[in-house]
C-alpha cells in the first residue's frame, strides 16, 4: 500500500504541491494524471525520496525514508541514466547487491522479455534511450518490489516492449504489488488502472475508482476535470 499524507512541497516561494493526500491500496494500479506543471513530478520525486517535503509518505505502513521501506520500493524514472562504465549485466549485479537479494535468474528472465538478452555485455554509454529504459525497468522489477512507481514508463519503448510492460504491470498487480503510474499517455493506461488521481496546480482535483465510474472514458473524466477541450 502507498499512502501519501498531507504532502506539501515548495520551491523557494512557489508552492508546487499543496497538502496532497491519497492512498493506493495493495494490489491496485493507481494512475497520477495532470497537465504540465500540475505538480505530478514533484509528487513522484517526493515518493522516490529525491525531494525533501513536509507531510508523510508510507510504503506498506513504513515511512518512505526508512531503509525497510526502500527494500520494498522500486522507481522507474522518466529519464533513465546508466553508469557509463557498467554493462547491462553488471547493472543487474549491482542492484542484486544493493538490495541484498539473489535474483539474477529473474533479472535474466525479464531481460529476455525485453529483448535485452543478447545485449547484456553492452556498456551503459552504448545504449539507446529505449534500451536504457528497458534496463531501468528490469533493474526496478528484479527486486520483486511491493510498491512500484513508474514515471512516464512507455516513453522511448518499442511496441513489443510496451505490450510486455503492460503485461508485467498486470502480473505484478495479480501478485499483490501496489503500482502507481504517472503519465500523459492516457490511451496506454486505460486498461490498467484501478484508481485515478488528477492533480492540477498542486492540488488534487479529482479521485476515482474504476468500479465507480461505470462506462465513462478516462479521457472524458480527465478533460472534464482539467477544463481542457478534447
Amino acid at each position, binding site marked *: 500500500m502507498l499512502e501519501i499524507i498531507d504532502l506539501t512541497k515548495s520551491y523557494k516561494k512557489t508552492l508546487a504541491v499543496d497538502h496532497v493526500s491519497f492512498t493506493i491500496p495493495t494490489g491496485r494500479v493507481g494512475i497520477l494524471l495532470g497537465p504540465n506543471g500540475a505538480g505530478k513530478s514533484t509528487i513522484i520525486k517526493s515518493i522516490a525520496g529525491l525531494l525533501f517535503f513536509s507531510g508523510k509518505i508510507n510504503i506498506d505502513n513504513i515511512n518512505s525514508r526508512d531503509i525497510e521501506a526502500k527494500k520494498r520500493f522500486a522507481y522507474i524514472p522518466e529519464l533513465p541514466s546508466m553508469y*557509463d562504465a557498467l554493462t547491462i549485466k553488471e547493472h543487474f549485479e549491482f542492484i542484486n547487491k544493493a538490495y541484498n537479494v539473489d535474483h539474477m535468474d529473474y533479472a535474466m528472465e525479464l531481460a529476455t522479455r525485453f529483448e535485452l538478452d543478447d545485449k547484456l555485455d553492452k556498456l551503459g554509454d552504448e545504449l539507446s534511450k529505449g534500451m536504457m529504459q528497458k534496463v531501468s525497468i528490469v533493474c526496478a522489477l528484479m527486486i520483486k518490489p511491493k510498491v512500484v512507481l513508474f514515471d512516464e514508463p512507455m516513453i522511448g519503448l518499442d511496441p513489443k516492449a510496451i505490450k510486455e510492460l503492460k503485461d508485467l504491470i498486470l502480473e505484478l498487480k495479480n501478485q499483490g504489488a501496489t503500482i502507481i503510474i504517472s503519465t500523459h499517455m492516457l490511451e496506454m493506461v486505460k486498461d490498467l488502472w484501478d484508481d485515478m488521481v488528477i492533480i492540477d496546480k498542486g492540488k488534487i482535483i479529482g479521485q476515482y475508482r474504476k468500479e465507480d465510474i461505470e462506462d465513462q472514458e478516462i479521457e472524458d473524466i480527465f478533460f472534464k476535470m482539467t477544463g481542457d477541450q478534447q
Partner: protein
Amino acid sequence: MNALIYLTKTTFVNKLKKALHKPSALLLILFWIAYAAYMIFIFSGMAVNFKLDSKEGIVIILTYVVLMSVPTNILMYVRKKGIIFLMSDLHFLFNTPISPKLILLYRFMKLLIPSIIMNLVLSIGAFFIFKATTLQAILFFIVVVLIEPLFETGLMMNVYANERLTQKHVDWIRKGTWGCLAIFAAYALYVFIFIDNTFNALAIFPLQELFLFIPIFGWILAPYHLIFLGATPINVICSILFAVGTILMLISAIKMPCTGKYYEEASNYAKDYSEKRKKAKKGEVSFGKRKYKKASVAYKGAYAKAIFYRQILEYKKNRFFIFGGTTLLSLGAGLVLCYFSIQERPPIEFALFILPGLSAYFSFLMSGYATKWSKEIDNAYTFLIPDTAFRKMWYATLIEHLRALIDGLLMVIPAGIGMGLSIPQMILCIVAHVSIMAIKLYIQVICQNILGKSLGNTGLTLLKMLIQGLVLVIGIMIAVMAAIMISNEMALLAIIVYSVVICLLLMLCSTRLFERYESID
C-alpha cells in the same frame, strides 16, 4: 556496502579496459602523468627559488593551502555542493536501501583519494625538498595521509548531511567560517603593520602560533608546527585539540541522523554538474545559468540570412552583447603591448610580427573552445533551411568574423599606436587577425566533419590543435623565408596573403563538407 565496493571495482576495471583499447585515452593518461611530474619538478624548483625549501617553508606553504581549501570546502558543503553525484547515482543509488551516509562517503572518497595521493607526494617531498628528518617525514605522513582524511571526512559528514542542523546552524557555520577567515586576515595585517611591513610578512605570518587556537582551521595547522618547528605549549595544546576534534567529529558523524534529506540539493548540484560536463565536452565555457535580457531583432532577409539575425537576437539578449572574454583579452593584450612599446619601442621590423604572432597564439590557445558555429551544427534548422551550403556557412559564421574584427581592432590599434605602426600596417595586422581566427573556425568545421564520429572530444581537440599548429608553423616558415630572401615588409605581406589564401581554401573545403555533413548528436 558490498554494492558500493562492487560499483567502484567494476567501474574502475571497465574504464581501464576501455582505456587500453583506446590509444587516445592512454595518451591522455600519459600526458597527465607527465604533466603531474613536470608540475612537481616546477614546484620544487619554485620552493628553492623562493627560499621555501626548509621546514619553515613547508609550514608556510601548507598554511596557505589549508586557508584556501578548508574554508572553501566548508562553505560548499553547507550549500550541499562540492560532492559530485552522477545522474546514474540519482537513478540507482538514491532509491536503494543503502544508507545515505555510505552513499555520501562513497562519492566523497572520489575527492579524498586524490588529496591523499597529493599528501603522500608531499610527505615524500618533505624529506627530499624541505629538509625534514626521517622521523619528521614519517610523522607528517601519519598526520596527512591517515589522520587528516578522517578529520576531513568527519567535518564533511557533519556539515553536509547532519539532519540535526537547522537553517540557523547552517547560517552560523557560514558566518563562523567567514569570521575565522577575518581573524586570519586581521592577524596577517597585524604582522604586516607591527612586525614586518614588507612582502616578508607573507612568510612570517604562517609561522606565528597564536592563530593555531582558531577552531578547525588553526587546529589543522597545529600538527605541522609541532612536527616541523618543534614542540611549544601552544602547538601541543592545539594538536591535542585537533586529535580530539577528529575523534568527536567522527563519533558525531556515526551517530548523527541522516535519512537522505540531502538528496534533493545533491540532485540539483548533480544536474548542474552534468550540464557543465556536457558543455565542457563540447568545448563550451559554462558560466552557470545565464540571465537573458528582453530583446528583439528585425529580420532583414530570408533563408540562410535568418541564421545571422537569429544569432544577433541571441547576442542582444546577452548582458554584454557580442563582447566576451576574448574581447577583454584582446584589449588587455593591446594595452599591455602599447604600454611596453612606449617604455621601450621595439624596432619596427620586429614590431610588425608581434601582432600576427599574438593572433596566432590566441587562436592556438582557443582552438579547443567551441564557437557559435559548433552550437549551430547541433541545430537541425541549420540543415533544414532551404538555402545553399555556402550561404548557410557564411551567415552562420558571419558574426564570428565580426567578433574577430572587433577583437582585432581592440588589440591592434592601441598596440600599433604604441609601436609606431602606420595605418596601412595596422590594417594588414587586423586582416591577419581576422583571417587567422577564421582559419581556426574552418579547421574546427573540417575536423568535426571528417573525424567527429570516429574521434572522441579529446582526440578532436588535440587534432584541431595539431592542424592549427601545423598551419601556423607553415605560415611562420613562409614569413621567415620572405624576411631572409626579400624584406621584413614582404614577410608581413606574405603572412597576410598566406592567411587569407588558407582561410579561403578552408572555407571552400568546409562548404563542400557541410553539404554532406551528418549531425553527430
